[in-house]
């Protein structure tokens, strides 16, 4: 069979960021007129790769060949001019502009500086009709649904003459019906001769609509396959790979009473429902791991428990006491420790010193202050001991927190949160961006706490972390706990299915839905 000349070729693309190689010698072809999916877990490098194609980043090594010619884009405008347009995961729309205004911004049809609204409206109507995109061009973007907003983004790139259209996690924000509509649009685009590349972690959708699929894992290409020739299982295996083995010690502990109960919690954010009827519970002396690809409500769940995000309906109970929507200081006072997922923005106050970060939140406690006086001897003693106990590598505790490496910064957060032997620990993506040593350390600390009888809620996008540490596992997808497994029952393949929506809580093996009985 004669191979059509590739419309886009990536040859040996490598991209590095401080501390991590996002893409490592990535090579792949995109054939003209196909729908090509790029899949992988978080941190696989999918977004970074496509952002380079769209001109937002420049590769450190390698070549991008578009329509047979090597190209170097120095900004998104050049890529658009060449015919490559990207629809981002987080929409770049001006909320209180109309659809029309958003589409034409920067490329306005005008006569001597004066906008030509009729021409604009006609052009957009034509375009929308041609591609079957139903839109009210006079509506304000903030008033239309998320699915419609996405259509506006697609229109934007079509309006500027894009032939290669990249979509980054397009269904992340859509409900199933809207996703169906999107797939119809993609098929129409294909029929009109456009080439579509889309990034996703949802395997069933990918299989439904794409022609070929490339799997990335940890910055490398694992393989490119034809959708018709591959199964979901094979894809999931390629995505997840084999776990690294850590040497973690755990004791035999019988879990006690339910410490935290989350009952049918619903929460909204950004104009849509993020947590849907979410239910699970964590008992003392166990680690409950929530596995899932990022963007399925994990961040919001952690915020809701800690009182940083309002809960619409449902209840959160701590040892039977209702703490729903309680302000953060009160939640913490009931013995909740929190390791936030963004240690730079939520976890630490980077310009302040290590010792200050270690005691922040407890500065008024009797151990550290007497009235208006800070008891420095006592503080330094505690901090030095904590630094030793948590193996923090630093020259001095007077240095600003931002001078520490990621792993050490995380340990400082642990040192702070574990003071007072909390009975409940919420650890959100605790080992993200950490090296192997620090990762092992953090996981062991969580296990130790559990051995001492604490209830630990671990939220992690790293599947093998959840598998190696948790006693029970709940899979979150679309803001809902789809299934729960015990440590013994869980296996990567099955979890992968639930994580990627291949199976949903409505049918399939395993215990469905989160439950209040273990």
């Amino acid at each position, binding site marked *: 069979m004669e191979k059509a000349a590739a419309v886009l070729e990536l040859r040996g693309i490598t991209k590095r960021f401080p501390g991590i190689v996002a893409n490592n010698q990535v090579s792949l072809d995109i054939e003209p007129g196909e729908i090509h999916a790029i899949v992988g877990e978080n941190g696989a490098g999918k977004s970074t790769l496509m952002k380079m194609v769209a001109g*937002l980043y420049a590769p450190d090594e390698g070549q991008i060949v578009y329509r047979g010619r090597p190209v170097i884009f120095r*900004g998104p405008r050049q890529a658009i001019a060449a015919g490559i347009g990207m629809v981002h995961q987080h929409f*770049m729309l001006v909320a*209180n*502009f109309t659809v029309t205004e958003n589409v*034409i*911004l920067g490329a306005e049809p005008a006569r001597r*500086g004066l*906008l030509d609204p009729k021409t604009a409206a006609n052009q957009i109507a034509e375009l929308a009709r041609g591609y079957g995109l139903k839109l009210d061009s006079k509506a304000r973007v903030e008033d239309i649904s998320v699915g419609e907003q996405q259509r506006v983004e697609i229109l934007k790139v079509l309006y500027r003459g894009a032939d290669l259209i990249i979509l980054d996690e397009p269904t992340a924000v859509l409900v199933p019906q809207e996703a169906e509509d999107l797939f119809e649009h993609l098929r129409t685009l294909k029929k009109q001769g456009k080439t579509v590349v889309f990034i996703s972690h949802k395997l069933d959708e990918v299989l439904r609509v794409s022609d070929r699929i490339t799997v990335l894992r940890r910055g490398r290409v694992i393989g490119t396959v034809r959708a018709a020739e591959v199964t979901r299982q094979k894809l999931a295996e390629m995505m997840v790979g084999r776990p690294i083995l850590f040497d973690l010690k755990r004791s035999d502990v019988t879990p006690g009473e339910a410490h935290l109960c989350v009952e049918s919690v619903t929460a909204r954010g950004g104009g849509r429902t993020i947590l849907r009827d979410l239910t699970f519970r964590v008992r003392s002396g166990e680690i409950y791991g929530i596995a899932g690809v990022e963007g399925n409500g994990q961040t919001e769940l952690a915020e809701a428990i800690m009182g940083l995000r309002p809960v619409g309906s449902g209840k959160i109970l701590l040892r039977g006491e209702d703490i729903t929507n309680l302000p953060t200081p009160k939640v913490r006072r009931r013995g909740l420790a929190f390791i936030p997922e963004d240690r730079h923005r939520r976890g630490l106050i980077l310009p302040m010193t290590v010792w200050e970060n270690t005691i922040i939140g407890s500065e008024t406690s009797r151990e550290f202050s007497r009235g208006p006086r800070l008891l420095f001897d006592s503080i330094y003693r505690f901090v030095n001991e904590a630094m030793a106990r948590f193996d923090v590598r630093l020259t001095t505790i007077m240095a600003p927190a931002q001078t520490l490496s990621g792993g050490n910064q995380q340990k400082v957060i642990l040192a702070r949160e574990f003071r007072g032997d909390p009975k409940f620990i919420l650890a959100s993506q605790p080992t993200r961006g950490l090296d192997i040593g620090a990762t092992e350390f953090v996981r062991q600390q969580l296990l130790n706490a559990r051995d001492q009888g604490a209830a630990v809620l671990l939220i992690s996008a790293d599947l093998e972390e959840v598998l190696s540490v948790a006693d029970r596992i709940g899979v979150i997808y679309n803001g809902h706990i789809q299934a729960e497994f015990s440590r013994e029952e869980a296996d990567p393949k099955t979890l992968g299915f639930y994580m990627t929506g291949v199976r949903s809580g409505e049918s399939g093996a395993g215990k469905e839905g989160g439950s209040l009985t273990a």
Partner: protein
Amino acid sequence: MFNSEMLASAIRLAVPIIITAVGAVYAERSGVVNIGLEGMMIVGAFAGATGTYFAGPYVGILIGMIAGALFALLHAVASIRFLVNQIVSGTAINILAYGVVRFAAISIFSMATTTPHVDSLPTITVPFLCEMPVLGPIVTKVSPLVLVAFALIPFTVWVLRRTVFGLRLRSVGENPLAAETLGVNVYAMRYWGVLISGALAGLSGAYMAVEHTGMYVEGMTQGLGFIALAAMIFGNWMPLGAMWAGLLFGFTQALSLRVVSSAIPYQFIKMIPYVLTIVVLAISMQRSRMPAADGVPYERGEAT
């Protein structure tokens, strides 16, 4: 008390607020907070009076606008190019304006706080409307700048809604990131917004000195630059709303000038505009819709 004279007075007093508030709309819609409007009005007033003294009212008023724009340029460079906190930069402008004007006054006129009396622009009378019962006194023998002020409103609405410039200006104040990815020059747009606000504030000051009082007196702006900001906020960042808010404040000012003998001591009447500003802000901040990126410094290349 509530008669045509009062209304005419209120309008005359509202004019500086309206002009400055409309100018503020240009800056704030592009995403830059301009606290330095008071300072720009002061330099506009002084420059306007001085220019008129030497070269007549037309030139004088133009110089007033230029002076305002120059000071705005300072603010723009500091806050857009150097990403300095916009409030601090604006406050520095106010202090600088106060000093520069005093300095110039002494150097040119040997008086620190006033300029000599100057001529005004020839007054005009709107032909048809001056016959009408209520409107009559308002449009008779009135400074042309009053009409300019009111013409500014529909003009600004038109610019914002129907021109490419207006669309891009607004986009930069709502979502500079999105605008940049589409090729809009965020920096340039914001510069324009700030410069226009400075020129209009200068015009407003020049009006006060040349047309209204007939000379520059230190402190004549009495915080109107800030009241204009509040008027803009009350008007929900839209020209028409700013106009109504400006008229309201103008009315309270007119009130404070007229009510000489009454049960309430005159100081409290004079307080009304300021207290009203606070009340207005307290109410409108809740329901207002500020440009999403207002006051947030933007660094080019944030899109990558």
